């Protein structure tokens, strides 16, 4: 009987003694943005190859990376206070991403937590170091606690400066940049990409396009300026905002955008409200022929006081002008991706793989070349459905 009385006590001490994963919320610091820069020793990548895998003290201080973590000042939050807080930062010089976490922990009184991060800024300088980028991407993919839905942006200059930047409209930079990204439904030249989407694209063939951001020091302005094109984990070049908008139309992903033609010396804006894209693929002797059919629908915005565009003929004429100018423009953008980057951001590769499997099997190994030599034809059909409330 005595045993039966003691048993619950014994069990209690076994089952209730441990609370390994207890973290009080006020001991936690929620990292909201991560900026990755090259460190002092970034040029020494070659030297690192001389370190043998079994050498002791591998943790010597090699400062390959400089990682900046931004986190909101939680003391500014609370009932009756504002919904957002300004940011504070920790920077860490490290040889790897995990080392950066360790270094940042040394400087932090709180438990750093990465599950709520919203923004990843990668310095463009770093994008030129293929090996280091591969290390970083592997880390980002392997970490289970990292938020895979954060936005990725490539920045000109040092990412640290961007994270420390105080924007006019918001209290912190990740709110600001995320807001900008959400605006992609209103502005065509923004092509937002999440970490998950980027990793998926990179795993496919090492190519990706990441929105690019520049920092105007005189005006104290951040702005999105097109995309950075990555090929085989290395920065290959840029597309400017107009080309980015075109690319987005070619991808069939555009939600809202604007195009313009000049008529009698006055601009006529065309707001794209709906977009349909069709790809048709033919092949002959290993050469690829691609037909991209783009169907645009939208409204005209503003012309010239006193002049009318309500005539059916005028509208048809405008539509024709748009068809012609846009087709040429799109073809040019395709040409750039073919000859300059030989990266295919439009999705022709996926299309061929999915719908022409037999042809794909024959060109799988020399796809870059096939794409480079492919003949791409773009036809555009524009429909101006609305002209506003005057004639």
């Amino acid at each position, binding site marked *: 009987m005595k045993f039966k009385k003691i048993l619950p006590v014994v069990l209690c001490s076994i*089952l209730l003694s*441990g609370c*390994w*994963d207890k973290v009080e919320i006020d001991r936690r610091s929620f990292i909201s943005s991560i900026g990755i820069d090259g460190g002092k020793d970034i040029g020494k990548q070659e030297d690192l190859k001389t370190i043998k895998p079994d050498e002791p003290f591998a943790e010597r201080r090699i400062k390959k990376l400089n990682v900046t973590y931004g986190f909101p000042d939680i003391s500014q939050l609370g009932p009756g206070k504002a919904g957002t807080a300004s940011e504070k930062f920790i920077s860490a010089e490290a040889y790897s991403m995990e080392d950066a976490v360790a270094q940042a922990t040394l400087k932090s009184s709180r438990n750093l937590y990465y*599950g*709520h991060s919203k923004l990843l800024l990668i310095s463009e300088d770093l994008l030129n170091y293929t090996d280091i980028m591969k290390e970083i991407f592997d880390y980002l*993919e392997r970490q*289970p*606690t990292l*938020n*895979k*839905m954060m936005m990725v942006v490539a920045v000109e200059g040092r990412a640290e400066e961007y994270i420390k930047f105080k924007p006019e409209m918001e209290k912190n930079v990740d709110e600001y940049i995320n807001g900008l990204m959400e605006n992609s439904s209103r502005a065509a030249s923004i092509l937002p990409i*999440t970490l*998950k989407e980027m*990793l*998926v694209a990179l*795993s*496919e063939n090492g190519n990706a396009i990441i929105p690019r951001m520049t920092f105007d020091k005189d005006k104290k302005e951040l702005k999105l300026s097109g995309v950075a094109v990555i090929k085989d984990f290395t920065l290959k070049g840029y597309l400017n905002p107009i080309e980015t908008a075109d690319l987005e139309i070619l991808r069939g992903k555009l939600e809202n955008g604007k195009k313009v033609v000049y008529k009698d010396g006055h601009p006529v804006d065309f707001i794209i409200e709906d977009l349909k894209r069709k790809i048709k693929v033919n092949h002959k002797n290993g050469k690829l022929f691609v037909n991209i059919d783009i169907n645009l629908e939208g409204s005209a915005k503003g012309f010239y006081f006193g002049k009318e565009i309500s005539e059916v003929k005028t509208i048809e004429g405008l539509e024709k002008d748009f068809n012609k100018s846009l087709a040429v423009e799109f073809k040019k953008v395709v040409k750039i991706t073919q000859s300059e980057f030989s990266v295919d951001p439009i999705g022709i590769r*996926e299309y061929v*793989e*999915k*719908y022409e*499997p037999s042809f*794909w*099997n024959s060109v799988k190994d020399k796809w870059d070349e096939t794409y480079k030599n492919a003949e791409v034809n773009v036809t555009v059909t524009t429909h101006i459905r609305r002209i506003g409330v005057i004639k």
Partner: protein
Amino acid sequence: MKEKEFINRYGLFSSIVVTAIGVGVFSYPRDLTRLVGSDGWFVTLISGAISCLLLYLIYRVVRLNNYNSFYSILHYNFGGFLAKICAIVFVFFNIFSIALGMRVFSEVLKMYLLLRTPTEFILILMIFTGIYLVRSGFDVLVRFNQIAFWLMFLPILFIIIIAAKGADFTNVLPVFNNKPLDYLKGVGATIYAFTGYQIAYLLIPSAKEKDAIPKIIVKSMIFISLFYVIITIMSLAIFNKKETTNLLWPTITMIKSIDIPGTFIERWEGVVMALWVIFYFTTFVNGYYLSSDIIKNAFKVEDVKISSYILMPFIYVIALYPENVPELYKISNMTGSTLSTFSLVILPVLILIVSLVKHKGGCRDEI
């Protein structure tokens, strides 16, 4: 010791389904996509059809032997000594699959939720909870399965519908673009995910409406196959082929990367992990009960309550044996496939042949 017949149609269906679908679903799309690319759904259907045949075989065996318990069937057909060996191998197979499943489960839990909680602690807690349910008896277990079925599949359905937003279903193309040999390999790799239906040895003798059993068997197997097909297609549509093969647990990462703008739920892990607990727990507790029941009959142990304690240390030790996650999957693929081939294909066929030839009608007595 024929139990009274109390399992209704839904009890049978839900018990088979919840036992077969376990931790395998975490990694299911990975191996499949590695082997056959975008044709995973097709291979799943083949595997499902084969499993359905094997399950039907179990039904025939049990019916031929007058709906006796598994050990009685073995004993009557093979005699005492051979029956004991077969029973031990069969129990070992069950213990093995639930123990390794438990390790997978605790690794996943440790990775996403309980970062610092020791694996041993998670295992012990799981086993104790399992014993509690096993001790309550078979009818309680079946009731539990019936409730768990809804707890599992309603939220998953909800999650899948939400995940479909932003998924690119053209990733399923091209179809039938593989060599026939690859399909065979795919079937070999995936058929293990269906194991768990051996619980039918326990369920069928206690089923109320014996005539309806074949229909229910087919229904439950269709359900399981469709579930796996949906999971495979979803992870192909959300990631692509390469990424799906690269991820250790595509299903979990898939749910993690669901993002619904403007909703109040942003990070799903907590909710999803709670769901997976039930997914694994049903597999575990049913397998555990089946093993305990066979041990009870084979070694004339008084009660399931006692035989479940005998098995406890084995589960714990097997679960802790693999050094790391890759070894865990290596062991479960290697040993699991040989053991399951014996237990689920060779053994039922042997029993069927022996009882057809030797006894012409199987055993009538009970032990």
